[in-house]
């Protein structure tokens, strides 16, 4: 990639952000909206700086919950998808449960999970796992099911044992699909953690937003929101780059 294209890639989102900030500033400062409803961006940035210790602590908690949730959900989802591929019995019994995990809104479960797993990070990790379990499991399972039949025929003529076909052909062939699921999971895992924090917690960005909201510290709420968004985007970007490197054979056609 040329230096110009790199520059264009970096500059373009910055221009978009600056445009959004200008619009925000215009509405807040010139539109006569009171600051407790919509604080101006400069006020939010000032608050962000003044409360940086508080925000960093909260972000650390939420990041830990998100990463633990992602890790556990990824392992659990991948294991279940593999088990459902290897065994028809497991597939028939577990498929309704996988669907159920998506059909029940996590918001509705949140109070229950806090009741069961406490105010600490455990309930938030469980929440994040529940949120990402479905995209991980279903995308990986789909990938495992959709091995090109010609590859399977070739493996059959080679006299391959089914589990070796799974390990050497179907599993690697499903990794790009798994990667898509993981990207989606990375983007939504923080939502699970934050929802958990709203319901009951003693730290974290969701907890901070909740308390700031009840005290009409709207600027702090916005600051926490910005930190959360930045954190999610950076996490997603890191996972995306890592996947692009691990799945070296998959054409990365959206590099532009």
């Amino acid at each position: 990639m040329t230096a110009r294209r790199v520059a264009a890639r970096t500059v373009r989102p910055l221009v978009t952000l600056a445009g959004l900030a200008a619009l925000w500033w215009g509405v807040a400062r010139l539109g006569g909206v009171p600051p407790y409803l919509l604080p101006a961006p400069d006020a939010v940035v000032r608050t962000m700086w003044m409360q940086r210790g508080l925000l960093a602590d909260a972000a650390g908690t939420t990041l830990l919950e998100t990463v633990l949730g992602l890790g556990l959900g990824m392992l659990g989802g991948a294991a279940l998808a593999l088990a459902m591929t290897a065994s028809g019995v497991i597939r028939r019994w577990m498929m309704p449960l996988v669907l159920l995990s998506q059909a029940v809104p996590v918001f509705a479960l949140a109070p229950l999970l806090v009741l069961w797993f406490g105010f600490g990070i455990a309930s938030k990790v469980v929440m994040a796992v529940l949120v990402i379990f479905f995209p991980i499991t279903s995308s990986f399972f789909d990938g495992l099911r959709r091995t090109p039949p010609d590859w399977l025929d070739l493996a059959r003529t080679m006299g391959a044992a089914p589990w070796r076909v799974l390990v050497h052909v179907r599993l690697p062939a499903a990794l790009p699909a798994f990667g898509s699921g993981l990207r989606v999971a990375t983007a939504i895992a923080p939502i699970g953690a934050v929802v958990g924090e709203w319901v009951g917690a003693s730290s974290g960005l969701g907890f901070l937003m909740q308390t700031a909201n009840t005290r009409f510290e709207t600027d702090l709420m916005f600051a926490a929101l910005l930190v959360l968004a930045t954190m999610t985007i950076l996490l997603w970007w890191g996972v995306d780059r890592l996947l692009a490197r691990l799945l070296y054979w998959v054409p990365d056609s959206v590099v532009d």
Partner: protein
Amino acid sequence: MTQARPAAPPAIRLEGLGLSYAGSPVFEGLDFTFSAGTFSVLLGPSGVGKTSLLRSIALLDRPTAGRVMADDGASLAGRIAWMGQQDLLLPWARVIDNVTMGARLRGEPIARGRAEALLRRVGLGDRLAALPSELSGGMRQRVALARTLYEDRPVVLMDEPFSALDSVTRARMQDLAADMLRGRTVVLITHDPLEACRLGQVILLLAGSPARLSSVPAPDGATPRPADDPGVLRGQGHLMRRLLDGVAA
């Protein structure tokens, strides 16, 4: 560099072989013997059931009637190498690992030296660590040929293996295949009359509905026959005529 010949390749006998698809017969009552150690080419219009026939021999599809057997009485299972129209290379595996894929799938030790020697013979000795995406279509098909040969099976079944290649690359692949598969029982499907006349020691036509097998005299001379050999050109014209008549009928 010579490769060890597999012990006595069997002839393949079709006995009353029939296959129905969705209730209507693709072919029925096929009786034929593919001679041992002979390169047979099967030609026919598309959709006539060539691939179905080859898949039945490869034990990938179960025939609805009759059977496929080796003339030595032993099962054909484990004695067949398959090469398809697509190269079917695993995109995440390097060239050398694609060639040894069968060993990995069977949990056998990997004969890396033999795989390297095969790749050198198909002219890819310097691309062992390349990924399939870094190779041209012709190179990929040569890797697939090396993978087929690595299996070292007495019977080799090929379903239009060169049809996606340009004509020059295709001619080179035909030379290579004729040379490297000599002595094995080969059944190759093609829709290209020139390919049939260059490679076939036996040329067969599958045509009609339900399809029947008929033998066509092969041109004289050892294979691979030159593309400009008068016998090859005459045979090619004759086959083309038969195919056109068959389609019209």
